[in-house]
């Protein structure tokens, strides 16, 4: 119970920090914020699918199903998939950030209005 409460607080802190960083004008902070929010979401799934200690979801020899108090493997599979995806997306976003800074010569998001047509 206490672990769940602690993790919930951690999720909240991660979301808040990530959102704060995303609202900054520097492009790199935006990216760090995005990755923090992604991790917060993964942790949220982990907590929402209920925490169990020490019983891996593996069926014992001869049994048809794992013991009922075993941890939920599906939530972990979801998180694993989400981590892999966010790894790929973040890699692309990093490359794009690099290109953006090279192309515009600034890391200030407020000055990136190139795609607006000139008046």
């Amino acid at each position, binding site marked *: 119970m206490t672990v769940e409460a602690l993790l919930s607080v951690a999720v909240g802190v991660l979301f808040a920090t990530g959102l704060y960083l*995303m609202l900054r004008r520097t*492009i790199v902070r*935006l990216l760090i914020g*995005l990755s923090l*929010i*992604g991790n*917060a*979401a*993964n942790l*949220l*799934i982990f*907590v*929402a*699918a*209920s925490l169990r200690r020490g019983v891996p979801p593996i069926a014992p020899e001869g049994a048809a199903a794992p013991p009922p108090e075993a941890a939920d493997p*599906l*939530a972990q599979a*979801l998180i694993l*998939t*989400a981590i892999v*995806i966010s790894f*790929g*997306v973040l890699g*692309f*976003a990093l490359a*794009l*950030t690099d*290109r*953006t800074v090279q*192309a*515009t010569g600034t890391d200030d998001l407020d000055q*990136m*209005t*190139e*795609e607006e*047509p000139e008046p």
Partner: protein
Amino acid sequence: MIFLPVVLPLLSAAILMMLHARPRAQRVASLAAHGAFLGVAVLLFARVQGEGPIAAAVGGWHPPFGVSFLADALSATMVLLTAVVAFPVAVFALALADGRWERMGYHPLVQVMLAGVSGAFLTTDLFNLFVWFEVTLISSFVLLTLGNRPAQIQGGFKYVVLNLLSSVVFLCAAGLLYGVAGTLNLADLAQRRIPAEDLWLIGLVGVLFLGTFSIKSALFPLFFWLPAAYPTPAAPVAALFAGVLTKVGVYAILRTGSVYFADATAVWTPAVLALSVPTMLVGVFGAIVQTDWRRILAFHSVSQVGYMAAAAGIGGKAGMMAAVLFMVHHGLVKSALFVAAGAGWRLGGSYRLDRLGGFARSHGWYAALFLTLALSLAGFPPSSGFAAKLAAILAALQGGYGWVAGTMVLTGLFTLFSMVKIWNEAFWKPAPEEMRVRTLGAGERFLLHLPLAWFAAAALGVGLGWSPALASSAKAGMQDRDGYVRAVLGDEVR
């Protein structure tokens, strides 16, 4: 059979990547891959219409444990639409191909995107839907920034950030829903009883889902990424995105609304309408002040997504039919108009309307095809736009939402205004002094006109043949929640 719309493009992507060093072979292979995809989509559609929904489980793990795919009338129609849009765009890409974006992987990425879109239309599992969204997004990120122009990179950056945020929201919604209901299979969810003390969590999940889908389909408060991103990429990429990508979000609203939130229409419908009605107006007003051909079209895409989402939100049989008809109409016509804009850029060298002119005299066939398509977008009979708008307005009136119907009529008027503006500027007024019209060879002229003719024929065909098509879709059980559950979880899993 049902896996082919996903497996085939992935296979094509791998083969096209192997052909990297040989652009000519790659072009032929790309056209062949699009043709094969179209063939598979037609076969799937015909089989669903003939035999009813087809379900299958990946790896033989039956639902609700494994990931399962279902092709009912709605999914099969969307896959068919994707293929019908993608094929002429591939032809159009051949006309513009100069090897520059091909070297950066245009052909394989399009195939990966098609696989992602098909997967999103066919899956029955919400987390799997998330995965297909990501497959689509990653390939579309790269497609959008092919060419590395500064405007592209900046438009792409906005697209990336907002879509990543919406993915995170989706992930949270899926995680919470799994925590409450213990499953993410849409059919299994629809038949689970949620204890009354947990219902508020389902409400929260609904808000999160609506939020993420509305970002993905560019609904009212968070739509700015679309007009920032869509006017920037290579012409075929813009055409493909306008036709296919916006539909994925609307499809998700339609599917979750009709299957999972079917009992909550009292909340769901006003929520969707509150997002979609302002979308219609803001999009169309945004278009009025634009002078760039593709920016006008992009703002119109926002406005038209509003129509689709409104019809989907009203729901019921009439609303769903109208939403599907509108998605088909918009997929065809908006891609076609982006193709037409690309052709204008090829001929006149610009997307800016003040630098174009005189196409009506210099390129008669091109002008006639554009006019057909523009009038279809504005909703003139007998085109698909007329059928779609009529269906949407009737659905709104039937549902008792007179003000929504009124907004739809008003938006249609302003759409006509923008289309007339493009016509007057690019086609009717005499060509400006500094415009140098490029003369094209017969082969390239053919490749530019063929996609437009294909789209115009399809739009007219949908406009003329819509009532029989609707009736047969109704037979295949498009809107039926219990039918969906039976089709996914029933014994006849093939």
